[in-house]
């Protein structure tokens, strides 16, 4: 009988894993199992153009569905199917209808789900944004004049706040502990982004949190920790995420923050040693930051599934064959966002900087073109630029690559 690899998760990570398994020479079965009913699709537009003007569900899917590589043949897709349990020692997974499926190799790519705000108050009117269905539901209520409260000012919070403002909604952005995208951008650029929001009429509330939602049956307002009350009948909660790891419980893994891996994306067993037949791909994978010599972390950027699949798939194929994996490259993280038409591009690990230096432009005016360098010691570990042509982004990316002294272990 054919050997079988199960890919758990059918979003971008699951697709890329399946493609890279074929590219790595895997000729056995590949079964990709995903909870959503949709085939793999592109999520970044969900907070931007799709949220602004989705069209019909069919049109959205036609626009967002990924094309698989032509070389990725013979892949079985089981969509709308939830995995509820696993036994890594016996090499089985269990589906919610009780069916048990054995595997020779397993790719963990079940990703994240949005966290929600845990406070008293009504539930109606509260939204999160992760799936096509979420975006369609939210679009329907972002009508001109709607009072919208966005909770959280990371990428999704900022992008959806900008989109809602562009649609003519009255938007309050409850920033939370840090300013707009402050962790990836640093404080100077974050302040510049806040200015962009303010100029477009978004009411930014800094350093406050939500105490309760108000309303009888459905939300009419948000009570904040400074005692103020914000009128809002549409709430967008963008307060981070939880890793979908519940189905991996009982195997002795460290599941405290995603799935802990080595630099080849092999999942670490209870004894801390990498397993040869289980790897993780995408934003669920917590893997060492070899580039900066920093501890393992999850990377929640769009490029991560593609980057990690290229490492994890050959490592899994080698492991099943009883071989050691080749030395893994250290992916250079990158991200982008679009706020009111201004492209912001980041590369490297700006969140881990000890110092920032302005490379060009004025961080207070991101839309006019600016680049900020992020340093540990004297080493450039990241650059974020805004409002510049992509050629400048490529230039700064090269500077980060050239500066990068890889820490080898």
């Amino acid at each position: 009988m054919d050997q079988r690899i199960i890919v758990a998760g059918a979003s971008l990570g699951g697709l890329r894993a399946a493609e890279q398994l074929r590219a790595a020479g895997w000729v056995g079965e590949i079964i990709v199992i995903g909870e959503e009913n949709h085939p793999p699709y592109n999520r970044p537009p969900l907070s931007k153009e799709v949220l602004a003007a989705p069209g019909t569900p069919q049109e959205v899917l036609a626009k967002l569905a990924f094309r698989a590589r032509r070389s990725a043949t013979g892949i079985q897709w089981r969509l709308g199917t939830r995995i509820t349990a696993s036994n890594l020692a016996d090499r089985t997974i269990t589906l919610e209808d009780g069916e048990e499926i054995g595997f020779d190799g397993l790719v963990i790519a079940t990703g994240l789900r949005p966290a929600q705000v845990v406070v008293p108050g009504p539930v109606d009117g509260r939204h999160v944004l992760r799936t096509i269905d979420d975006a369609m539901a939210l679009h329907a209520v972002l009508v001109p004049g709607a009072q919208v409260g966005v909770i959280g000012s990371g990428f999704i919070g900022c992008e959806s706040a900008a989109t809602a403002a562009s649609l003519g909604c009255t938007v309050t952005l409850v920033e939370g502990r840090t300013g707009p995208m402050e962790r990836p951008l640093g404080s100077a650029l974050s302040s510049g982004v806040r200015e962009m929001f303010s100029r477009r009429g978004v009411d930014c509330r800094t350093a406050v949190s939500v105490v309760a939602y108000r309303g009888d049956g459905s939300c009419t307002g948000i009570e904040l920790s400074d005692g103020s009350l914000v009128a809002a009948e549409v709430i967008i909660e963008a307060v981070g995420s939880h890793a979908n790891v519940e189905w991996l419980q009982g195997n002795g893994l460290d599941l405290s923050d995603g799935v802990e891996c080595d630099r080849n994306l092999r999942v670490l067993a209870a004894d801390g040693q990498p397993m040869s037949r289980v790897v993780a791909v995408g934003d669920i994978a917590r893997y060492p930051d070899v580039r900066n010599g920093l501890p393992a972390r999850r990377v929640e950027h769009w490029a991560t599934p593609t980057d990690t699949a290229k490492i994890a798939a050959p490592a899994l194929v080698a492991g099943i064959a009883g071989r050691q994996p080749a030395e893994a490259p250290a992916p250079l993280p990158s991200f982008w966002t679009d706020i009111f038409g201004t492209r912001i591009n980041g590369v490297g690990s700006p969140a881990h900087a000890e110092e920032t230096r302005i490379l060009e432009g004025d961080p207070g005016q991101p839309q006019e073109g600016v680049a900020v360098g992020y340093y540990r010691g004297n080493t450039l570990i990241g650059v974020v630029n805004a409002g510049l042509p992509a050629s400048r982004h490529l230039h700064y990316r090269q500077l980060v690559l050239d500066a990068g002294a890889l820490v080898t272990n």
Partner: protein
Amino acid sequence: MAQITVDRKLCDNHGQCAIAAPKVFSMNDEGILEFEETFDDALLDEVEEAIDVCPVQAIFVKD
């Protein structure tokens, strides 16, 4: 030789293709994509990678 097409209505000039396959794709000083319309089969891996990393899935290959 294989042929590349880019859907310019989709292309948003992110520049990721120029990182993945710099022999085929580049960004000019205005930040606009330029590319070779045909490429040698030896570059297929790089071009497939460029297709993968395009955030708007605007790159297509024909034999």
